[in-house]
């Protein structure tokens, strides 16, 4: 029997190529930025403002997404109804939308001349160019990542677990909280990490919908872009900080999932 000896090396070569290509820019950022420059970029108060703003707005956006998205995804995963596929497509649409289009859309809906602009103005709420608009943009762009992941995590649950919970005297809400969420937790956390990563890196929609005002709407990606034109070294330093923060969040979430007992899935 003739073995295909060339195939395993081919797989190996493909992985090596992918790995090199994907890590090269990140490695370059850190190679070009000395530790001194990295610290110096944190000396810049504008950079610290951007980092603080990025962290809390993205955390708030992810919090909103998880709070609303988890029950919504559960409903999508456990009920079949007419038009379900259409609904899922609508929810996933922002995934493929260019961020600039997302920004325009948000302006058209909530901007001063938008659909709800007048209503918001009458209520005394100003959204555009405020920190609120940053949170809205991040939520809009990152939510589909969580919803998709959470929906598939809930779909993968054994339906008999949910049935068993009901026959054991637990209502729907208890079943959701005590069985569905713990059993789907690894998937939910993976979705949370993806959404958070996406929110931290958000650029286009925020720029169009919220602008780039230091301390108010200027998140790290916007601050990097501002420096890019004038001070490449500072842009590089801030990029390195963002990579480190995003990487740390991703890693923490992964480790938390591994430590979670819910990882023990049946068979």
């Amino acid at each position, binding site marked *: 029997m003739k073995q295909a000896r060339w195939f395993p090396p081919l797989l190996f070569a493909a992985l090596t190529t992918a790995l090199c290509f994907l890590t090269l820019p990140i490695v370059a950022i850190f190679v070009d930025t000395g530790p001194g420059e990295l610290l110096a970029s944190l000396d810049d108060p504008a950079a610290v403002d951007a980092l603080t703003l990025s962290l809390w707005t993205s955390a708030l956006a992810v919090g909103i997404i998880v709070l609303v998205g988890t029950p919504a995804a559960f409903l999508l995963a456990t009920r079949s109804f007419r038009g379900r596929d259409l609904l899922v497509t609508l929810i996933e649409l922002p995934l493929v939308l260019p961020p600039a289009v997302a920004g325009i859309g948000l302006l058209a809906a909530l901007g001063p001349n938008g659909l709800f602009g007048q209503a918001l103005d009458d209520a005394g709420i100003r959204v555009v160019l405020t920190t609120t608009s940053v949170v809205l943009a991040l939520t809009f762009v990152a939510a589909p990542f969580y919803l998709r992941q959470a929906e598939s995590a809930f779909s993968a649950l054994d339906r008999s*677990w949910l049935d068993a919970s009901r026959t*054991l005297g637990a209502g729907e809400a208890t079943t959701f909280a005590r069985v569905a969420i713990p*059993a789907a937790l690894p998937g939910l956390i993976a979705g949370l990490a993806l959404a958070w990563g996406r929110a931290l890196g958000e650029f286009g929609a925020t720029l169009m919908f919220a602008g780039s005002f230091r301390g108010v709407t200027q998140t790290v990606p916007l601050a990097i872009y501002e420096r890019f034109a004038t001070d490449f070294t500072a842009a590089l330093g801030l990029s390195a900080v963002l990579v480190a923060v995003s990487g740390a969040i991703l890693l923490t979430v992964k480790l938390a999932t591994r430590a979670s007992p819910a990882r023990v899935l049946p068979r």
Partner: protein
Amino acid sequence: MSFRVEATTDLGALHLDVDLDVPSGRCLAIAGPSGAGKSSALRVAAGLLQPMVGRVVSGREIWLDTARGIDRRPEERRCGYVFQDYALFPHHRAWQNVAYALRDRPRGSREPEARAWLARFGLEALADARPATLSGGERQRVALARALARRPDVLLLDEPLSALDTRTRARASRHLADVLRESQVPTILVTHDFAEAALLGNEVAIIDDGRVVQRGSASQLAAQPATAFVADFTGAVVLYGTATPDSDGTTLVTLAGGHRIRSTDTADGPVAATVFPWEITIEPTGHRTPRSTQNQLEAQVLSITTIGGRARLGLSGAASLTAEVSTTAISHLDLRPGTPVTATWKAAATRLVALDS
């Protein structure tokens, strides 16, 4: 406290129409092929499936009455449900799975009570294990403990043994039989295996294509199958032919291949003649002892399957037969695939079921 479930509903291509009642302390085994609607009947009883028309009554409590718009939620029906794959919560330890059923008890007493339940099932040492690390038999006992810890008014068992391997199944079924004997509540058990139904049920209802085709004790069903399906399902050999009453009071059945057999049952017209594999004896060909009270067919051994000290012989000849003989007979007669033999059984052991022509 008795239990009754009536349901009529369409499930895809299947039309389910059942009416099952079980007195307290008794076990009704519903047996039938997969897709016959057995599990659906249980799901209706537990409130996990809403029938178009139905009534579920437990003692004096009405759980469902579509005519009166009553439909209690699953959590409001006190039923202990053991699912086919046991449905243990993977993120909970064994005792936490049982404690989940004790939600109506004070918080502090749940853990000791759950551990006590597990101890009753011989699982005290595994109380802290997670389901993924338990064997099939252990999982089944945790599921049973969890269902009983709910202190149910009715016990619903969906194929409680089918997820187990053959060796574990024998021990688990003895254990389950003990549990059911002690249990005071009505029980409905669903299985696709007639032997299991016969062992665990006080009564057996054979269900096919959404309907109960016959109900009675297991031996009744085996001895007097109402239809060819029941005969086949209970494990009998089924031969099709045409019956004509004979002058001596017996009935002569002409099989499809032209061979004739006799039965002490009376029938006229198209029939299914049934005989149990253990009624058939095997002799070497030519060793004839022809008597009018005996049936004989020439056949060839097709297959030999040993189960314990017994062996099932698949025979091909004028008709396909299955005979059950001792393993000593196999070696004594030097039986192997291809050996020509004579299959003999009594006319009195041949049951006739009239077929619709």
